[in-house]
């Protein structure tokens, strides 16, 4: 990311010789490491080491309440998780959740950004309105939406009653609706981030292109299809990738709003991990579920990358 944004060497400076370039690079190495050190230390301590720890623990029957890794069990934890119906259910819920959040979060964010970009006056209000939910903590979001979804007296059920639905079902207490309820909450909460990315990209598109297009008689819709969407391609790539990863990592809202219920109907992989590792004290088995989720995330993002390349090749 950061290397891509570095501007190329100024064209007027004479090209440095190989020797002097290496000399300079060597001279810069040490300060560079010093500047990186605070981040690298935290990165190693709180990201790289826990990931290594997770891989090791997944091969042991590590217990939260015993010191050390426990006894080596090889792939037994993996065999257990892969044959556990609840694991597959949770994985299914996670994938469904990813599907029903990513699609609206990309399309709606795009639509709202295009609309907001056309607003000439008080655009700040729209930017603010869409972005504010995103800066709220997940606990606040969960409270707001649990209130909206409260059975019978909540905003949503009252609305349903008002439009004549005789027996509105409590969203979070109905197995078939609970995950959908959490998904809508998530869309409302995080759409602001994608919206802002799209809006920034939209404002980078030169006005002249639209002017030229309208001179040529292109309709609004043609302009969006032939100018806006292609020029936002890179943003869309980024947004889709970030969104898929964020949705696969769903935890907070489910834990706070439904705790995986009713029954296990909204149990996702990370709530299963938390249950196994912390409630059941089974650090090893919990780590295994985490490793499996990591593999799923890698596969899903890999598939997305592959589709992206195929598309580019076809276009090229």
């Amino acid at each position, binding site marked *: 990311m950061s290397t891509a944004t570095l501007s190329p060497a100024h064209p007027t400076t004479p090209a440095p010789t190989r020797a002097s370039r290496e000399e300079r690079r060597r001279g810069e190495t040490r300060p560079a490491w010093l500047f990186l050190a605070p981040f690298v230390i935290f990165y190693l301590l709180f990201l790289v080491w826990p990931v290594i720890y997770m891989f090791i623990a997944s091969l042991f029957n590590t217990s*939260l309440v*015993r010191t050390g890794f426990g006894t080596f069990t090889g792939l037994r934890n993996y065999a257990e998780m892969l044959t556990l119906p609840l694991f597959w259910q949770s994985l299914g819920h996670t994938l469904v959740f990813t599907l029903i959040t990513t699609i609206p979060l990309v399309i709606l964010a795009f639509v709202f950004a295009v609309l907001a970009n056309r607003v000439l006056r008080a655009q700040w209000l729209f930017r603010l309105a869409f972005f504010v939910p995103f800066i709220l903590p997940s606990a606040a979001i969960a409270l707001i939406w649990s209130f909206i979804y409260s059975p019978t007296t909540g905003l949503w059920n009252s609305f349903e009653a008002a439009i004549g639905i005789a027996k509105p079902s409590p969203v979070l207490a109905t197995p078939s609706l609970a995950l959908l309820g959490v998904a809508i909450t998530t869309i409302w909460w995080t759409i602001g981030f994608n919206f802002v990315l799209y809006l920034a990209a939209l404002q980078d598109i030169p006005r002249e292109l639209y002017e030229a297009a309208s001179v040529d008689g292109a309709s609004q819709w043609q302009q969006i299809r032939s100018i806006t969407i292609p020029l936002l391609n890179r943003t869309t790539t980024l947004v889709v990738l970030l969104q898929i990863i964020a949705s696969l990592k769903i935890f907070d809202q489910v834990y706070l709003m439904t*705790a995986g219920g009713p029954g296990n109907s909204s149990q996702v992989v990370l709530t299963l991990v938390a249950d196994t590792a912390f409630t*059941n004290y089974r650090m090893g088995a919990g780590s295994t579920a985490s490793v499996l989720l990591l593999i799923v995330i890698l596969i899903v993002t890999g598939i997305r990358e592959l589709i992206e390349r195929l598309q580019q090749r076809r276009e090229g």
Partner: protein
Amino acid sequence: MTSAHLGRTPLSQSRISRRAVLQGGLGAVAALGVAGGLSGCGSALSAGLAGTKLDPGTVTYWNLFGGGDGSRMQTMEQQYMNQHGGGRSLQSATFTWGNPYYTKVSLATLGETPPDVAVAHLTRQFPLALANLLEEITDDKLALAGLSSADFNPKVWQALALNGKHYAIPLDTHPFVLYYNTDVCQKAGLLNADGSLKPIHGTSEWEAALSAAKKVTGAYGASVATVGDNATNWRWFQTLYSQQNGSTPWLSDGGQKLTYNEDLTIKTLTYMQSLIKSGLMPATTDYTGSQTLMFTGKSGFYMQGEWEITTSESVSGLKFGMTPIPVLFDHAATQGDSHTFILPRFNRTPDQLGRAMGFVKSLLDQSLTWAKGGHIPAYLPTVRSAEFSKLKPQANYVSAVDAVVYDSQAWYSGSGSNFENAVGSQIGLSQQGLATPQEALAAARDQLLTYANTPSPL
């Protein structure tokens, strides 16, 4: 355990006075090293900000009581504070009950910042004790507060023992009981002249009573939650199962073996289904729905833990009574659990230990206040008192304590545990008619085997 325990309860005791804010400011200053000498004392806020210890006289206390239990517990805490120097003497926090609560207690203890005293269910303190997270409660420790093991209901005290040692101090027992709508039962001719329920023995008398009540209500004879509440499904099943000769515990060897009696399980599930199929009980009703049926006279009886006395008393115009669950099979038995106090393990000074035990004693002394919430105190001086015997309908079902059957001891068992969820959800499906008893048992067995075949993490 109350209905309010099922919902979310806010942290109690979060009143922030001007004094606390000022002290908080001082704590922050202390943290900056400007006034290090001040960091030794202060409120929870300043202690949190500066990372210092609480005022040395403060007892920290965690519990899981919401609803009526929650407000009664706050009254009892207030009493302690009044006697021990005001709000600074106690720092109490209430959390949602069930697995999340015990996870918090475990992690806080592992992180070496547990509360001085915490509440745990009798069945849930076993895993905590086996995980070495609890202080042993010795006679010496009890003596610090002028208590001895003879002060507690012997049945509860024995049930608490783990390999001959104790790790908790019992507060109460809360059995699954039978509530009845006095008006309905009166009309159905099920009451004695004094308003008490005529004794019911055996399934035929039970069905006759339910049929009589059904004729009066026009809807149902009795109601019990079948949807969205795994614990209640388990309570009702375990009550009927345990009343039969030959009913073995569901789990043994610390949870490594499934030892339920298969024939009796199928028989019990079939009987529960038959009560629903014959229309005497509703097939789909949730926790509050099952109450409402009895409150509104649509069913004559209702079964739940005795803690719902608070909700029942708050229904205006409702006349109701409570008794132990009748003996439908061979002998009296009812599912139940006890609330206990635990001392999470950390290096206590003798002062801290003394204060913690003093706090427990203060709450035990107020067992009568606690009993008003339906629970039967474990503290014998209260149970033997004249005031308690006048407490109705509590005094009617004191005998239920002797019939209480606790959940089997295992690392995944106990109130609100994975065991109750796994088995309870299947019992629910069987009651709703969505699974046959055989299917329900097979599914429950599958889920339990996963746990049973896993070496205990304790």
